[in-house]
């Protein structure tokens, strides 16, 4: 009996494995079961959900979508569920930056998803999805930022000459953040044209600040979780934003900008360079939406003073609740959503995949279609996802720390405080949060 079971397990594992390669997977059979799920909504996420009937047909189960909201709304809803004890659903959309907050409501997927399947994902991204050694989410697609720029600006002979005369080196897409600053100030002609822009509030600016601290060789916390972002590296990072703002090289409204503002701003053609997410690529190059279509250049994110490239990254993902009443069905659903076929569907819309093979095949497909822009996008982003990407500290207090930090970053930007004073004040508050949370 025991032997038979072992044989069966091996058999199943083997089938899953071979099927994974053949991309015609056996998702198991769960007739009559209704899987309750909460998914992130929004235009770019919906095409995947149109595929769900395939899984229903294959397994005999039904999927009931309990809610469909953007991530911030979903975050609030999940916190309410934890508070009210209404975790009566199985699968939820998640994100690597949000996941640590939720404690242990989500199951460790190492025990639910076959190792072979997990091995098909980009290893770095699986690492980002792991909190305290538990794989609490299976990544759906990744995001990291690279530098978009208007190509024509760098081909203009008069501009090249003027730049060289002023700064002493050739005008070319920047490789360091110091160059970004020079060029941003050079290109800026407010109020009609700006050299650069950045998001200026919420966790967005915290993230941008954080990646620059890392690129400058600094750290947010020391080994004992004392805040160290007020170090010289941190001050230099903040000073970068402050200087650009003071020089009017960025729009005056950036302290109120979030992702939509930077994206729409670059698409409006009034900004020279934009550090932005891969998800925007297709939008920027679409003549229906963007005035810079056909003129979009892309390079890997520049390096900080320590020679490290900025690479703040996050991945959208799916998780299974510990309270789920049918974890095998939920696991099957996760494998389906993040499976090869579906990642190909999402990659064709410009989302960055998390499976190594999809990176290959999607790039090949763009090449076959003659879409050189997207080939360029995918090869650039693949490289940064593999080499540069890092997540924020995966601790539950990250958002809380961020919420004391970003108003201070803004205070320095708009001139209420010096960079050092602002960071010192934020570090004091952050230390209290970490202390109250029991870190030291």
């Amino acid at each position: 009996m025991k032997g038979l079971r072992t044989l069966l397990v091996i058999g199943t594992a083997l089938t899953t494995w071979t099927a994974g390669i053949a991309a015609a997977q056996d998702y198991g059979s769960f007739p009559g079961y209704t899987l309750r799920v909460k998914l992130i909504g929004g235009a770019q996420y919906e095409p995947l959900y149109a595929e769900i009937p395939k899984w229903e047909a294959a397994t005999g189960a039904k999927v009931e979508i309990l809610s469909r909201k953007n991530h911030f709304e979903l975050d609030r809803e999940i916190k309410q569920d934890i508070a009210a004890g209404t975790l009566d659903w199985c699968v939820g959309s998640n994100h690597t930056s949000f996941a640590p907050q939720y404690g242990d409501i989500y199951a460790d997927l190492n025990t639910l998803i076959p190792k072979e399947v997990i091995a098909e994902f980009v290893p770095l991204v699986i690492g980002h999805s792991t909190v305290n050694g538990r794989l609490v989410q299976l990544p759906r697609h990744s995001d990291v930022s690279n530098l978009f720029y208007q190509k024509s600006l760098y081909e203009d002979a008069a501009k090249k000459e003027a730049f060289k005369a002023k700064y002493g080196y050739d005008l070319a897409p920047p490789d360091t953040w110091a160059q970004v600053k020079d060029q941003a100030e050079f290109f800026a002609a407010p109020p009609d044209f700006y050299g650069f822009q950045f998001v200026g509030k919420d966790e967005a600016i915290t993230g941008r600040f954080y990646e620059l601290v890392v690129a400058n060789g600094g750290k947010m916390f020391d080994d004992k979780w004392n805040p160290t972002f007020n170090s010289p590296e941190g001050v230099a990072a903040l000073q970068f934003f402050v200087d650009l703002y003071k020089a009017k090289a960025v729009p005056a409204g950036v302290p109120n900008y979030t992702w939509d503002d930077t994206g729409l701003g670059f698409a409006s053609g009034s900004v020279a360079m934009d550090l932005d997410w891969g998800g925007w690529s297709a939008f920027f190059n679409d003549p229906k939406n963007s005035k810079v279509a056909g003129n979009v250049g892309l390079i890997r994110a520049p390096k900080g003073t320590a020679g490290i490239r900025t690479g703040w990254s996050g991945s959208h993902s799916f998780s299974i609740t510990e309270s789920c009443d049918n974890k095998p069905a939920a696991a099957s659903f996760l494998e389906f959503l993040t499976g090869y076929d579906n990642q190909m569907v999402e990659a064709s819309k410009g989302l960055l995949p998390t499976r190594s093979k999809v990176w290959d095949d999607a790039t090949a497909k763009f090449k076959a279609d003659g879409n050189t822009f997207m080939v360029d996008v995918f090869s650039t982003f693949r490289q940064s996802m593999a080499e540069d990407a890092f997540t924020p500290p995966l601790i539950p207090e990250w958002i809380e720390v961020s919420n004391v930090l970003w108003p201070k970053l803004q205070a320095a930007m708009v001139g209420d405080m010096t960079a050092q004073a602002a960071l010192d004040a934020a570090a004091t508050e952050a230390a209290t949060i970490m202390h109250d949370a029991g870190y030291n």
Partner: protein
Amino acid sequence: MKRVRGMVLWVATFLLMVVMCVPGLWVILSAFRPNREILAKPPVWVPETLTLDNFGKIFGWGAEQIAIPVGSYFLNSMVIALTSTVIALGIGMAGGYAFARFRFRGKNSVFLGLMLLRTVPGIALSLPVFMLWSRLGIIDTKLGLIIVYVSLNVPFTIWLIDGFFRQIPLSLSEAAQVDGCTRWQAFWKIEFPLAKSGIASAGVFAFLTSWNEFALASQLTRSTDSKTLPVGLLDFTAQFTIDWAGMCAMAVIIIVPALILTFLVQKHLIAGLTFGGVKG
């Protein structure tokens, strides 16, 4: 001379109204333009393209589609706003009548108390109401939202209707009762018809409040079973993007029914708010 003055006054007022409406008209115009033109620099003042694409996207007959179940949202909004308005009017009429026609102990305190309960900010209520509703199992149901909206609208409805009933001379009802009507019959035959416009205007306010409410709806609704139009607006915001043109198209869908309703009851609205609209 007087006529010229009237004309000038009219034109001036009309222009003022138009200027006041510009920010809103911009939204409505944007619903018929592509994103590229609305948020452009340099600006595109005279629309180059007028298109129904933004609506096509939502309703699913365009080339580009975003799956937003606007039909369900519309239906949810209608059911929730209408039901809660009717219930609030019923409760408000009973309450308003009690305040206007009876003398009882603690009357002023009860009245003020009802008003003050309405002042509690939605943000302060959102979590406790959520916890209570989840115990009762009415999270993400139309019923859950209807109950909340009734409570949002009852105090104001009572206020308005109370004021209205006060203006209806008691003698009318008393006369009817002398003629053999019960108090109940007197109410329906005499006072209710006279109070109609007061009730209509309370109804418009209640409807608009429920129709446009966002803060609580975004907490208490989750799926297409109960999500309302204002909550659905957020479907156009993904983590990094906002489809402003699409949002504007949805805004038109939200605004038009409200506008039609307001226009239809306009006559009653003013009369109803005038409290003393009935000569006594």
